[in-house]
Each structure stands twice: as C-alpha cells, then as structure tokens.
C-alpha cells in the first residue's frame, strides 16, 4: 500500500510538472507580451519596461519558469513599488489586475466551488444510487429501459440548459425558490442550503442517471456472484444478503466513479457558477480570462489539474479499500 501510494505520488508530481510546463509555455510564450498585458493597453514603453522588470519578466524564459516553480515550492519575492512583496509558498504569482496573490484569490473562492461540488455529489449519490438499487432489486424490463432512456437524456443536456429550465420553472413561474445566491455555510447554514439548492440539482440531475445505471448493473453482477449464491444456499435472507454482503462489492465502482467525477466536475462547475452567478473558481476563471490576467489563469489551470490528478489517485485507493480482491501494486 505504501509503495503504491509513493509510486502514485511520484507519477502525480510528474504529470503536474509537465502540466505546469505546458501551461506556462502556452500562456507566457505564445500570445505576445505579458508585460504589455499586465500594464494595460495605454502604457508607454518605459512603463512596460518597468513592469517587466518588476514581475521578473526580463529574465530568459527558462529562468522565469524556474522562478515560477521556486515560488510554488518555496515562495518568492516581488518588488512592489517601494518595498518587497513576499509571496508565500505555494506562490502562483500575483494578479496583473488586482495585485492580489493568486493563491489567496483561489483560496478565497475555493469554499464556493467546494460547496457546489460536494453538495451536488450528495444529491446525485442519493438520487442515483437510490434508484439504481431499487431497480436492481425489483428487476424488470420497464425500469431498465427507463433508466437507459434517462441516462441518455441526462448525457444530452448541458448543465446550463437544465439550470435555465429549472430557473424558469421554480424561480420565475412557480416562485418557490429565490434566485440562487451564495451565503457562506459558516454565516448562515439555512440560507447556504437554499441558495445552492438549484445549482446542486442542476449538476446532480445530469450525473445521477449515470450513477443509477452503474449501481444497477453492478448490483446485479454482484448478486450473481458465486459467494452470494453460496450465502443464499445457506439460507441467508435476501434482505441481509443485499445489505450485508452484496452492497459493499456493488458500490465499489460507484465510489471510484464518484472520486473521478468529483475531480473532473470543475468543467461543469464553471458553467454552473457562470449561470447562477456564484462567486467560485469558475467565475474567477471566466472573469480573469476576459481580463487576460495570465497568472490567475495559469494558477487556476494548475489547481484544477491538481484536483483531477488527485481524484484519480483517490479513486484507485478507494477501489482497493472497498474491494479487498483488488491488490495495489
């Protein structure tokens, strides 16, 4: 287990290093002059030169990248006007627009995206695993075809379309729910819940059909396993069989998929946050992209890449923990 984790960690670092190199190369070398971008359209050449020196953009590219990496691991200093501005590790640079540290900007918005993603996960697990189990236990053609149809439909709706339709129905026509807003959980749990309910449902509806189908097929497969048949032959009750013996094995792929999806959820989160105006990482990305705020864009890309890679490792580990037949090597 330890060896496996170590190996995975090394692989993860490798992927992240390559990712950072690609991101850095694409954004800092390809599209023209970052110093000009940082300074703005109306800067004089002298001002641009000043900015270039201040941000360390006058060094050769490989050195810049080395500084960037150094900032990530050990922090770095920027000269800001009169004094030095220390940027603590993990330092992702300083925003061209607001002058804030990118790490701080990301940390401030992480709770919003985390609330959105984790809440949506709870909703889709309840909906998906619940219906999946139900339809597995009372198997029949109708429920199977219904689930297949729903999965296809769920795969076919972009999250912002579902969100818009929900907005029209529940906000505008029925007026059951207010327009979603973000209130921090620590401030007012109740408002946090109601404010995020529609975004959660929009995200979860798309995912839950997939989970229902996976749970169902996985449960049926497990119930057909030899060891379950043995239990049944010994006279273990059907109910006990399902809850005690089959569920664990049946949910293994569900757990692994959840971890993977959670890591990859950021894409849909960008769209959801943009639709509902939630001030999370996705909103930050869209706004910094429109302002061409390179350090923020690079930082966000790296952070999301980190979560995707991390989620893959967690999925592998969970797989092993919940299914003892899997041996990690």
């Amino acid at each position: 287990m330890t060896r496996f984790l170590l190996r995975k960690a090394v692989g993860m670092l490798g992927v992240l290093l390559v990712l950072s190199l690609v991101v850095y190369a694409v954004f800092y070398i390809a599209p023209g002059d970052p110093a000009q971008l940082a300074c703005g359209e109306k800067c004089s050449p002298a001002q641009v030169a000043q900015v270039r020196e201040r941000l360390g953009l006058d060094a050769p590219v490989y050195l810049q990248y080395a500084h960037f990496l150094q900032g990530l691991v050990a922090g770095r200093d920027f000269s800001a006007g009169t004094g030095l501005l220390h940027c603590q590790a993990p330092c992702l640079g300083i925003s061209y627009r607001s002058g804030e540290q990118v790490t701080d900007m990301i940390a401030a918005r992480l709770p919003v995206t985390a609330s959105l993603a984790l809440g949506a996960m709870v909703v889709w697990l309840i909906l998906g695993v619940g219906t999946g189990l139900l339809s597995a236990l009372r198997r029949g053609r109708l429920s199977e075809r219904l689930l297949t149809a729903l999965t296809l439909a769920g795969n076919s709706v972009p999250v912002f379309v579902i969100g818009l339709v929900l907005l029209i129905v529940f906000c505008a026509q029925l007026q059951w729910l207010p327009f979603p807003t973000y209130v921090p959980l620590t401030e007012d749990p109740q408002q946090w819940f109601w404010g995020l309910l529609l975004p959660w449902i929009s995200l979860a509806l798309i995912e839950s059909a997939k989970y229902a189908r996976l749970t169902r097929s996985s449960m049926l497969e497990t119930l057909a396993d030899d060891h379950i048949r043995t239990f049944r032959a010994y006279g273990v009750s059907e109910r006990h069989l399902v809850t005690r013996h089959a569920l664990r094995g049946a949910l293994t792929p569900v757990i692994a998929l959840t971890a993977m999806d959670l890591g990859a959820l950021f894409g849909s989160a960008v769209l959801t946050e943009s639709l509902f105006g939630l001030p999370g990482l996705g909103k930050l990305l869209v706004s910094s992209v429109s302002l061409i705020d390179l350090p923020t864009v690079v930082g966000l890309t790296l952070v999301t890449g980190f979560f995707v890679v991390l989620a893959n490792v967690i999925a592998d580990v969970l797989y092993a923990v919940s299914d003892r037949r899997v041996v990690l090597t």
Partner: protein
Amino acid sequence: MAPQEPRAGEAPAASPAAGGRQVWRRLLARRTVLAAGLVIVLLALIAAAAPLLSAIEGQDPTSFHNDLLDSAAGGVPTGSFGGVSAEHWLGVEPGTGRDVFARLVHGARISLLVAVGATLVQVTIGVLLGLAAGLGSRLLDQLIGNTTEVMLALPSLVFAISLMAIVPSDFPRPLLLTLVIGLLGWGGTSRLVRAQTLSLKQLDYVAAARLAGAGRWRIARRELLPSLAAPVITYAAVLLPSNVIGEAGLSFLGVGVKPPTSSWGQMLSGATTWFRADPMYVLLPSALLFATVLAFTVLGDAVRTELDPRAASRLRVGTARGADGPTADGSGGPTPTGPGPSNAAEEATA
C-alpha cells in the same frame, strides 16, 4: 430480453464483406435510431439551407429591430411569446430585436460544423498518434503515451476557455473553436488506437504481411486501419455529441462565437438576464440543443451496440446472461472486430 434487439430474430450468418451494410440495416431497423437519424438529417438540412430559410421568412440574423422592443420594460419584445408575429415566426431577441428564427437556423450551422470538424480533428490526430505509438519504437511509444496521459489529465474546458481568450479576436472564431476543441480532445482516441494496434499487431495476418515484406506504413494502412474502423467510429460517435455540448458551453461562457454570429450557446449566454421576462427566448435554443445532442447520443449508443457486441451484453448484464453468448457470437462474426481487439478496447476504455 431477446425481442428488444431486432437482430436476435435475424439469421446470424453473413459474409464478412456485407458487415458494413448489415450494421446499417440493423441500425435502421430500430425505431429510435431511425428517429434520431431523421432529426440529424433535418438539422443538417436546416443548417445547410439557413440563408434560404431566413430569406423565406424575410428576415436576416443580424439586423436590429428596436421598434419591436418594449423599452419601458428594459428591452423585452412586445407581444406574446417573445414577440411572435407573421414577420418574426419565433419572435425577436430581447435587447436587440434580432430575429430569433433566423438566428436559430444560422446557429445550427455553427453547432454542427464545429462539432463535426472538431470530431474529425480529434479522430485524425488520435488515429495517427495511436498508430505511431503502437507501431513505432519503444521510445516513441513512451513519448506519445505520456503525452496522451497529460492530455487526458488536462482540465480541458478550463484550457479551452483560456486558449479561446488569448487568441487574437481577428482569428475566425468558428475555426478557432473547432481547433481548440479538436486539439484538446484527441487523448481518448489515441489511447484506444494504440491499445488496438498493439493487440492487432500480434495477429497472424499482420505477421504474414510483415513476413511478405510490407513496411510499417503499408501495414498501418492496409492491414490495421480496416480493423480499427469499427472501434474508432464507435468512439467518434461518442465524441460528437460531447463536442456539440463543448461548443455550446464555450459560446455560453462568452469565449466562443461572438455576436453578430449566432450559435445556440451564444444565444443562451444572455438568457440569465431574460429568463423571467422572456422564457420563450431561453427555451428555444435549449430545446434545439437538447434535441441535437440527444439524437447524436442515441445514434452513438446504437452504433456502439451494433459494432461492439460485448458492450451490448455488458449493459444488459445480469438480466439474461446465458442468452448473450450466442447473440454476441452471431453478430460478432461479420463485424470487423475480432475477439482480441475488443478485449483491448475494453481495457483501454476502463
């Protein structure tokens, strides 16, 4: 479970040459597939005839009609259902008064062109790199393999958003969308083709070709590509609808096509402002987007079931295990995928 699949009642015997036609016939025999196909054909016709259609209506997608807007209400179209009238069949856009019907049919062009184009880019790059990795030296294989892993680990939407934003705005946006979606999405195809190539390479007929003196390029083209067609088509059929969604998403976020060019996603980007006052304007592009993606998804799902019998039996696992064996054998024969390659496909997609 047997009557659900039309092919169960058919005679399993067919000559290998008839494989493609057989798949077609079986696909068309399903009502849902037929419906999905009709929707796609209709959409393609609408997209192709967009200027003609808006000319018949007597409108164009770009001219403003401020006289049709209620300026007191903030630019909401006057009249019911978003300003539907004899001149404007589906109403006008709130805020600008541009004709919704004309914008929708022109939007179909962008959605379809970008999605199909991006899929072609993804498949081309994926097949070429996958073949190169599978047939090339160990070093090349490692290089391509690692690049593919990084591509798959990329948060592609995030990357796409950023790329769309930094490319100068005088670059044609639809082409840029096609390239960005295409260049970011070839990882899956490449991995699939590599795995298939590695297992196909072991088969006797490829070895025979090599012994007969065929070079790598010839083996790739003449021996491998025909066998790769089925899994690649299957995978492309899954990529296509996700590319439609991808284009819509980027345009929705405001980094895709920019007005006055219209796309469904771009029409929806203004929707959050108008969903209360003019729900019709929001629902129309949503419905079209949904219909398009659903049609492509249904078709892709059916293609997968037909070309990869193992996928079909996996989906129905537990319901009728015994019955799947003979069915899979019967339809597995004529399709180009032998048992070896589809095993590799499973490993690659797992």
